[in-house]
């Protein structure tokens, strides 16, 4: 506002430099257009449109029969479930039960950041051999993928799914150099690709987290032992510091950013910048717009309702879970599926399990 007031009201920049504008217009017109490309690309696009049309026609048949089969199966299952558990279903309606106790096992030296679940809760991604990104479907509709990450000398450490489920942010560390990459997963229509979002010497990037519309990524940046949370736009060159801390996690509606600072879980209301401390813990994850869970020092999962004052916090019961120490719990977007990352003692490993409501 202040800047605007320094200029005459209702100014129109078009009136102030008419000669320059004419010059720019002339220059624009003088830039040649590649009409040969225009006609060749049009043919290519028409061909692609025909292919897409053909694919579209095939898909409904398969999906509708699949859907029907699924509906029947779901109907039978739900009927059985309703009959069997109906009498005491009322008290377990919000209960979280482990349904895949050992989905995956990673070497014990792996970090809890090396694995993440997609927002739809249909697949997980993890890094193995320091440079291969794997996806593991949680249902039979998808195929597992292996994506070779850019061949550098660094080690890939952190994984984070974008909210649209087609992109994954990965962090690479090469001695003193930290890089943040965005990997576009291959699809039926396109080959996968990787692009470098950011690199910096003498720092350590960790724990990337995508914003609501995937237009920016928050991550922790450690320099000289100081941990800070930064945000980089994925569509422009903008970047800015948000707070001191680590493990940032955007709330699904983008209203809050949860993070860890001095061993405490904190949430920042983005509109006002107000920070609320929730309690001791790490690895915050949102199960709803105002429901946040995190793991405490005893390896228990704790849930906070952040839209009530004072913030209500309670321990979350996880049925059928082993006694392994829980490190991190990550929710799918609708708070139905929960990815659990635990430390197994015998044999020593990082065990990934899947729970759901």
């Amino acid at each position: 506002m202040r800047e605007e007031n320094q200029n005459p009201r209702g100014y129109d920049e078009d009136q102030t430099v008419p000669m320059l504008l004419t010059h720019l217009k002339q220059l624009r017109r003088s830039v040649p257009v590649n009409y040969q490309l225009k006609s060749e690309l049009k043919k290519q696009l028409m061909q692609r449109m025909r292919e897409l049309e053909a694919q579209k026609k095939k898909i409904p048949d398969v999906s509708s029969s699949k859907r029907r089969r699924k509906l029947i199966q779901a109907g039978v299952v739900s009927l059985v479930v309703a009959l069997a558990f109906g009498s005491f279903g009322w008290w377990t309606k919000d209960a979280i039960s482990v349904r895949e106790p050992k989905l995956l096992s990673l070497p014990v030296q792996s970090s809890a950041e090396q694995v993440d679940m997609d927002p739809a809760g249909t697949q997980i991604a993890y890094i193995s051999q320091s440079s291969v990104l794997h996806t593991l479907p949680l249902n039979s509709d998808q195929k597992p993928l292996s994506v070779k990450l850019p061949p550098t000398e660094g080690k890939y450490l952190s994984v984070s799914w974008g909210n649209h489920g087609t992109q994954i942010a990965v962090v690479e560390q090469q001695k003193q150099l930290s890089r943040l990459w965005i990997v576009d997963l291959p699809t039926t229509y396109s080959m996968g690709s990787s692009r470098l979002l950011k690199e910096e010497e003498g720092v350590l990037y960790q724990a990337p987290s995508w914003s609501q519309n995937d237009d920016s990524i928050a991550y922790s940046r450690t320099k000289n032992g100081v941990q800070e949370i930064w945000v980089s736009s994925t569509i422009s060159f903008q970047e800015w510091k948000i707070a001191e801390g680590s493990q940032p996690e955007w709330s699904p509606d983008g209203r809050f950013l949860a993070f860890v600072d001095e061993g405490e879980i904190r949430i920042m209301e983005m509109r006002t910048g107000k920070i609320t401390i929730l309690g001791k813990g790490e690895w915050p994850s949102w199960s709803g717009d105002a429901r946040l869970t995190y793991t405490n020092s005893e390896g228990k999962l704790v849930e906070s309702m952040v839209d009530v004052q004072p913030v209500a916090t309670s321990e979350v019961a996880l049925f059928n879970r082993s006694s392994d120490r829980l490190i991190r719990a990550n929710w799918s977007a609708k708070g139905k599926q929960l990815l659990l990352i635990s430390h197994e003692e015998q044999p020593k490993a990082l065990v990934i399990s899947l729970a759901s409501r």
Partner: protein
Amino acid sequence: MGMAMNRSAQPSVQSNEGYYESRPFTELYDEYFDRVNRYLRCRVQNSWDADDLTTVVFLKALEKFEQYSRTSPFASWIFRIAHNAYVDFMRKNREIPVDQEEFLGAEPDDTWQPERQALTNEEIRLLRDRLDLLSQDQKDVLMLRYFADLKISQVAEVLDKTESSIKMISYRGLQKLQKMYERGDSE
């Protein structure tokens, strides 16, 4: 709204109830190819890269066309894709030095229109040198406004900024550019 109605390249329907773009992809391609290709040829150092990027932009646009809402201008949508493709390209190529020989106008082109040849490659080179002295925001805004021929509101949509900030950035960028022309600097 009124201004939009007067422009030649406009959507099929724009009434008091709002904007609706009803044309099929091929028609929009025919109309917007030139603007996108010109814009990228202005922004990227060599025209082969610009043409590759133009291809990427329209292939991407076709893949995502179902996501285009049709209630906002196609120009904003396609130039958002073009701008993002350009930003990605710059990130990937940021360590590659500029090859002055492959500058925008250095390549002979059959489509070059004779009546405009008076504007030499040197003038274009000079403009680009001067634009490089502006801030990234100013460069983006001026390029989208005057080389992609977008309206203020459309530039605002592409860059995710408010119209007033686009006006301000554009005003300042033009003033700075004007001064450079007056002083004759490019370094």
